[in-house]
């Protein structure tokens, strides 16, 4: 991952793309949610170390999702919107001693403030949401989940087709900007499809998201204009990463007893 000095970070998203495109010959990059920076205080000559959030790149090249999600969309969406959220968040954290130093998950829950969100919530949650979203997709995605995930979906929705219908319907009936999620609900110990507005994500209710779909217009407008139905179907058919979903379910089982420990997840 490229490291960059906070104060001289280039505003151009084009530079961002070239910065990160080098590393994609190797398999999935390790998760680095904080970048260590050195910032020298000129007046005192002492060195201060601040850790800030960095813009984590999607685990694929920006054109890897073509023709279903164009390079242009990824450049604008990841390099523009997602980057703005990261920058905005860092600026807010700079001034906030209480919140500085939280992990991303903690930050989202704390700033949600039980429904009365703090100003940092929008940026924090959107950074988290977009990281999660890029990971929820892969080149050559779509198709069907396998093994334990499929069994759990069939158990909680009746059939994969039912689940898919419900997911698509939720996406298309979402008013305004928001996200659609497949979540594992902790209390009820079952999967569910939920939709959230703007920046809200299921972490705030302590549920475990498995996959997400960005239904903000900027996510699909360049590629599909107002044809949301096409976008959602393309996501389900060609983009959604059931591999990642499987990994997430496996991790979730450490926290939620789904009651059937014999299911081979992975």
């Amino acid at each position: 991952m490229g490291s960059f000095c906070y104060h001289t970070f280039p505003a151009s998203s084009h530079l961002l793309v070239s910065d990160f495109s080098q590393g994609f010959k190797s398999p999935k990059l390790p998760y680095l949610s904080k970048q260590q920076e050195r910032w020298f205080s000129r007046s005192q000559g002492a060195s201060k170390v601040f850790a800030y959030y960095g813009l984590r790149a999607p685990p694929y090249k920006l054109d890897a999702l073509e023709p279903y999600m164009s390079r242009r969309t990824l450049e604008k969406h990841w390099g523009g919107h997602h980057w703005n959220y990261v920058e905005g968040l860092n600026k807010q954290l700079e001034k906030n001693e209480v919140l500085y130093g939280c992990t991303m998950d903690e930050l989202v829950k704390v700033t949600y403030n039980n429904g009365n969100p703090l100003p940092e919530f929008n940026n924090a949650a959107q950074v988290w949401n977009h990281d999660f979203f890029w990971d929820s997709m892969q080149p050559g995605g779509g198709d069907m989940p396998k093994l334990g995930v499929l069994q759990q979906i069939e158990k909680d929705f009746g059939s994969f087709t039912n689940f898919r219908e419900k997911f698509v319907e939720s996406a298309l009936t979402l008013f305004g900007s928001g996200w659609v999620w497949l979540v594992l609900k902790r209390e009820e110990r079952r999967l569910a499809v939920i939709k959230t507005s703007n920046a809200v994500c299921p972490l705030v209710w302590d549920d475990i998201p498995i996959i997400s779909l960005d239904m903000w217009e900027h996510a699909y407008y360049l590629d599909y204009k107002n044809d949301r139905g096409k976008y959602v179907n393309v996501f389900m058919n060609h983009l959604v990463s059931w591999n990642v979903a499987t990994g997430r379910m496996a991790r979730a089982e450490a926290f939620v007893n789904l009651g059937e420990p014999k299911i081979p997840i992975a």
Partner: protein
Amino acid sequence: MALRSVLTRKTTLGLGLRGIQTFSLPDLPYDYGALEPAISGEIMQLHHHKHHQAYITNYNKALEQLEGALAKGDTTSIVKLQSAIKFNGGGHINHSIFWKNLTPVREGGGEPPHSSLGWAIDTNFGSLEALVQKINSEGAALQGSGWVWFGLDKESKKLVVETTANQDPLVTKGQHLVPLLGIDVWEHAYYLQYKNVRPDYLKNIWKVINWKYASEVYDKESK
């Protein structure tokens, strides 16, 4: 209200107790490309012909379902339909106002308001620049989808700048509020041209804002 006669075309269908009013897409008073370069023809066409039309179609559908539910006394459905009516009906109201808020440069787009509205703006905000600045900053700060409004409070006679979320009409922020100008800050209103730089869209839209219309509404409603 004058607006309502433009928005509705009453047709009675079916054997219901009430006739269903079917709403239809109002014509744009200018060509799709007439607002260039502030707003591209591509956006205008999609915005009017696809988005606004979709709100109207879904509004009509929701009203039809409402009529059925009312006839049966099905309270659950009546209540459930409210969000669809608010969203799609609101979308219809808001966009109908929006098309009138814009006009090509050659027909006076961008010309600042004079007489009573001009004075009222100076009194309430100090100057037109200050008002534009306020509207732009509130519009840029709006998270997600919504509208930024410049309106008149009929009761207090004050001019206000407000934002609403999604397709909520201005009246949801205050029952006495009358919209003079509304700017759509949903991403579909600017994304193809301005991408994620909403502030640029807000800066440029003033070149095609129809202050004459806003003045007319102000004069009528402030009596």
